[in-house]
C-alpha cells in the first residue's frame, strides 16, 4: 500500500529494465542535488552525529541512495498475483542507479565549481558546497568518490531485502537508536547529570557520539531488538491496536509512565531544555484543541491560531500594567475571563461557517485567523493592542508570594504540563462520550447525523468552542511566559504547524498528538522556537511542508492512529480479516447468506 506504488508501473519480471534504472537513479540524484542546492548539506554539516565521521548533513544526503536501493528491492505483494522474485538483477540495478545518482550530483558540483557567478542568484551554491560534495578531496578525484559511495549505499539498501525480517528490523532499531541518541545529546547530558560517566562515555567532548560509543550503542540496541522481538512487551505497540480493551489497558500504562516522567523530568533538565519542554507543552495544548475540531468533529480549521491569539491578548490586556484596560488582574483572576473570551471567539468564528462545505470552511477560518492578526497589528487599533510593539510587561503566574514567568522556567514547565494534563483528560473523556459520538457521526456523514437526531449546528459550535478554550489555555500560559505579546507570534504558519502536529501524530488520538508534538516541536522546533536540532531553523517549514505531503500520501492516519481512523483508512485489510475474531479464529461466513 505504501511506497510500493512506485513499483506498480514496473514490469513484474526481474528483467533488467533501463527505464526503471533511469527513474530510480534520476530521482535519487535529484534528491541529493536538492539537499545540496538548498544548503541543507552545508548547514547540517555543523551538526556531527558521530564525530568525526558522520554529520547530519551527510546522513540526509546519503540516505537518498540507500532508500532508493531499498525501494528497488521492494515488491508489492498482492494476493493472487505472483510477485517477481528478487534476483541479482535488482542488485545490479541498485548499484548502477546509485552510480547514476552520484554522477548527477557530481556533475552538479562540477557545474557549480565552473560557474562561480551562480552564487549571485543562488546564495547556497558556493565553494563550500562543492568541497562537501567532493569530500574535501579536490575537484578531480573528489568527483569520483560520491558516485562510488552512492553505488555502495544503493547496494546496501537493496541487500536489506535478503536479510530475515527479524534481522532487518533489529538493524533498523540499532540505526535509529544511534541517530536518536545523537540527536538527544543535550537531553541525555542533562538527565544523567548525576551519573556523568554515561554521557562522558557516549559523547565526544566537542559534541556528537564517539565512534566507539556509536558502535556499542548499535550492537546493544540491535541485539536487544533481535532477541526481544516476538515477545509481548506492553507499550506503544498495542496503543495502535484496534481492540478497545487492549487499547485502554495500554493507554493507562502509557499514561502512568508519562505522568511519572512529567513529574521527574523537569527537575533533571536544565533551563534550555525546560524551555523546550514548555514549548512542546504549549503546542501540545493547541494540538489537543485542534484535535477536537479536526480529529473528532472533522472541521478543518486553518485559522486555529486566532484562538491562541485571543487567549494571549486577553491575558496580556488584563494583567499588564501598560495595557489600555484600566484595571489590573492577576493571572488567576484573569483566567476565567480569558476562557470566556475564547469561547465567545469560538462562537463568533463558528457561526458564520456552520453551513459551509468543508473546504470552504478551511479557507474562511484561515481568513479569520489572518484578519485577527492584522487587526492586532494595525495602527488603527494600536491604542488598544499596541500595534507592532504589542503588549509588554505581562507579569507571571502568582503562586504564594512568587510570580512564575518565563525566567522561572523549571516551575513554569509544571504549569504547562498541568494544563496539558487537563486538556488531555478533557479530550479523553469527551472522545467516548455522548457528544464525542455525535462528533464522530458528524465527521462520517453530516447529513445522516442530522437525520438521526443530532443537532449538527450545536455539535459544530461545541467543537469550535471546546477547541477555542483549549487554545486559550495555551494563549494564557504563553502570555505569562514570554511577558510580551505581539502579533508576529500568531502568523498563519502556527496554525499550519499545529495541523502538522495533529496529522503526523494521528488525528483523533490523544497519544498520537502527544507524540507528534514531542517529535516535531521537540526535535524540529516550533515556528519561532528552536528544537533539539537547532540547525533546522530555516528548513523547518520546508520539512513541515514535505512531512505534510508525505503523511497525506503514505500514512494519512498518522504515526499513532486512533481506532476509528485506522479502520477508516485501511478498510480493505480489515475486510479480509472480518471473519476472524480477535484471537484470529475463523468465525464463519454469514449464516444465512
Amino acid at each position, binding site marked *: 500500500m505504501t511506497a510500493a506504488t512506485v513499483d506498480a508501473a514496473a514490469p513484474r519480471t526481474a528483467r533488467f529494465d533501463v527505464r526503471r534504472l533511469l527513474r530510480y537513479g534520476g530521482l535519487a540524484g535529484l534528491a541529493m542535488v536538492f539537499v545540496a542546492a538548498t544548503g541543507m548539506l552545508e548547514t547540517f554539516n555543523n551538526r556531527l552525529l558521530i564525530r568525526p565521521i558522520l554529520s547530519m548533513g551527510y546522513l540526509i544526503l546519503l540516505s537518498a541512495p540507500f532508500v532508493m536501493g531499498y525501494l528497488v528491492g521492494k515488491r508489492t505483494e498482492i494476493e493472487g498475483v505472483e510477485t517477481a522474485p528478487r534476483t541479482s538483477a535488482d542488485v545490479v540495478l541498485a548499484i548502477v542507479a546509485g552510480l547514476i545518482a552520484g554522477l548527477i550530483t557530481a556533475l552538479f558540483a562540477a557545474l557549480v565549481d565552473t560557474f562561480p557567478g551562480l552564487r549571485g542568484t*543562488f546564495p547556497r551554491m558556493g565553494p563550500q558546497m562543492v568541497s562537501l560534495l567532493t569530500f574535501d578531496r579536490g575537484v578531480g578525484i573528489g568527483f569520483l568518490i560520491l558516485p562510488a559511495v552512492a553505488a555502495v549505499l544503493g547496494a546496501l539498501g537493496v541487500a536489506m531485502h535478503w536479510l530475515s525480517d527479524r534481522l532487518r528490523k533489529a538493524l533498523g532499531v540499532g540505526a535509529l537508536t544511534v541517530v536518536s541518541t545523537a540527536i538527544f545529546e543535550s537531553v541525555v547530558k542533562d538527565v544523567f547529570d548525576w551519573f556523568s560517566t554515561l554521557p562522558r562515555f557516549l559523547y565526544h567532548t566537542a559534541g556528537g557520539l564517539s565512534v566507539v560509543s556509536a558502535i556499542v550503542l548499535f550492537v546493544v540496541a540491535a541485539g536487544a531488538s533481535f532477541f526481544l522481538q516476538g515477545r509481548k512487551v506492553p507499550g506503544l505497540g498495542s496503543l495502535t491496536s484496534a481492540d478497545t480493551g487492549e487499547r485502554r489497558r495500554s493507554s493507562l500504562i502509557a499514561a502512568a509512565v508519562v505522568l511519572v516522567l512529567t513529574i521527574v523530568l523537569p527537575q533533571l533538565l536544565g533551563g534550555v531544555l525546560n524551555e523546550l519542554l514548555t514549548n512542546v507543552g504549549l503546542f501540545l495544548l493547541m494540538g489537543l484543541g485542534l484535535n477536537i475540531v479536526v480529529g473528532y468533529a472533522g472541521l*478543518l480549521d486553518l485559522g486555529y491560531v486566532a484562538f491562541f491569539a485571543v487567549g494571549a491578548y486577553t491575558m496580556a490586556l488584563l494583567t499588564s500594567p501598560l495595557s489600555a484596560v484600566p484595571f489590573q488582574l492577576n493571572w488567576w483572576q484573569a483566567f476565567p475571563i480569558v476562557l470566556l473570551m475564547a469561547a465567545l471567539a469560538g462562537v463568533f468564528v463558528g457561526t*458564520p461557517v456552520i453551513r459551509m462545505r468543508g473546504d470552504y470552511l*478551511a479557507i*474562511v477560518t484561515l481568513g479569520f485567523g*489572518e484578519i485577527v492578526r492584522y487587526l492586532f497589528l494595525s495602527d488603527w487599533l494600536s491604542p488598544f493592542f499596541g500595534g507592532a510593539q504589542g503588549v509588554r510587561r505581562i507579569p507571571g503566574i502568582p503562586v504564594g508570594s512568587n510570580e512564575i514567568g518565563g525566567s522561572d522556567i523549571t516551575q513554569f514547565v509544571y504549569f504547562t504540563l498541568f494544563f496539558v494534563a487537563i486538556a488531555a483528560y478533557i479530550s479523553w473523556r469527551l472522545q467516548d462520550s455522548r457528544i464525542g459520538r455525535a462528533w464522530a457521526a458528524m465527521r462520517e456523514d453530516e447529513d445522516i447525523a442530522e437525520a438521526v437526531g443530532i443537532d449538527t449546528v450545536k455539535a459544530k459550535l461545541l467543537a469550535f468552542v471546546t477547541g477555542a478554550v483549549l487554545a486559550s489555555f495555551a494563549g494564557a500560559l504563553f502570555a505569562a511566559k514570554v511577558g510580551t505579546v505581539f502579533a508576529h507570534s500568531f502568523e498563519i*504558519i502556527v496554525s499550519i504547524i499545529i495541523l502538522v502536529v495533529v496529522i503526523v501524530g494521528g488525528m483523533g488520538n490523544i497519544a498520537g498528538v502527544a507524540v507528534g508534538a514531542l517529535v516535531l516541536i521537540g526535535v524540529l522546533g516550533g515556528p519561532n522556537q528552536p528544537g533539539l536540532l537547532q540547525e533546522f531553523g530555516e528548513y523547518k517549514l520546508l520539512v513541515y511542508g514535505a512531512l505534510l505531503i508525505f503523511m497525506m500520501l503514505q500514512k494519512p492516519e498518522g504515526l499513532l492512529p486512533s481506532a476509528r481512523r485506522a479502520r477508516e483508512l485501511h478498510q480493505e485489510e480489515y475486510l479480509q480479516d472480518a471473519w476472524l475474531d480477535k484471537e484470529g479464529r475463523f468465525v464463519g461466513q454469514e449464516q444465512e447468506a
Partner: protein
Amino acid sequence: MTATTAEAATRVRKSFRPSWVDLFLWAIRIGAIVIIAWGLIGSILNFAAGRGLSATQWRDLIVAALSQGAMYGLLALGYSMVYGVLGFINFAHGEVFMSGAMVGFIAANWLFDAGIWAANPILSLFIVLVVAMLTSTLVAILVERVAYRKLRGAPRLIPLITSIGVSFFLQYTFAALFGVAVRSYPQVPESFRGALNIGGFRIAWSSVLVIVVAILSMIGLWYFVTRTKSGQAMRAVAEDKEIAALMGIDVDRTIVTVFAVGGAMAGVAALMWAILFRGVNFFTGFLPGIKAFTSAVLGGIGNLVGAMGGGVLLGLFEGVGPLLILGGLGIPGVSQLKDVVAFTALVLVLVFRPSGIFGERLGSEDRV
C-alpha cells in the same frame, strides 16, 4: 374532498423559522452594509469638501486596481479549473505563480546584464514571459504528478491538506535556493515608463500592457477550452470522469493539461506582477494566491469567465475599497489594512455568496 384541499391550501403558512444562526448572519450582513455605506458617504463628503484624493488620483487608483484585478483573474483561472475538474482547492497555486515570478527574475536579470533589456525591451519581456510560463507550467505539472495524482477520489479535505503542504514546501524550497531577500526586477524599459493618452485619459503604459496581456490570454484560453479537442476533453472530464474515460478520453492526460494551462496562466500573471510591483521573493505567491481564490469563488468556481470577472471585481474592491470605505470612516493607516480588506472580502464572499455571482459550473460529482 377537493374543497377541503383548496381550503387547506389557503391555510398554508409559509413556515419561516429563522434560527439564531440566520439571525447572526443577517446581523453581519447588515453590519457590513452599514459600514460600507457609511464609509462611502464619508468619502463622498470628503471629496465634495475637496479633502482626500483628487479626481485624477481616484482615476489612477481605479486603473491600477483594474490591472491588478486582471492579474488576480488570470491566477483565479487556475483555481477555478482545478476545482471544476478535480473538486479540490489547489492551495499551492499561488506558489506555482511565485515560482514563475522567481525564475522569470533570473531571466530578466540575465537579460539586463547582457544589455538586451535596454536594447530590445519587447523581446526581453517576451523572453521573461516565456520563461515564467514554462516554469510555472512545469511546477504545476510536477506538483500534480507527485502530490495529487495518488489522491484522486480521496475525500475533499485530503488533497486540500496536501496542497497546503505543497505550498509550504515550495515556498521554503525557493527560500532555501534563492535566499529570503526581496529581489527586484530591472526597471521597466524607458519606453514603457510614460503614460498613454486614450481619449483624453492618461493611463500608465504598464497598466495598459497588463490589461492587454490579460485580455489576450483570456481569448487564447477561451479558444482552447471551446474549440480544441483537449479543451473539449477537459470539459467532459469536469462533467464526469468515469463517463469521460468510457468515451475514450485519457483522464490522466487531460488532468495534466488542466494543471498545465492553469500553470501557464499563472506564468502570465507572474509577468504582470513583475511589471506592476517588480519585487519578488519566496512569499510573493501567498497573498495573491488567497486573493485569486477569493476571485474564483466570487466569479463562481468552475466558471472561467466568472473567474476573470471575479478577479477584476476583487482588484477594484481591494484597490479602491480601503481608501473609499475605511478612509471614509476616518480610520488611520489605511494602506496597512489593505490585506484585512482582502481577507474580509474572502470571508464575506464565502459566507454569503459561496456559489459566486456568475454561477458555479461544476461537474456532476462536485455538486454537493
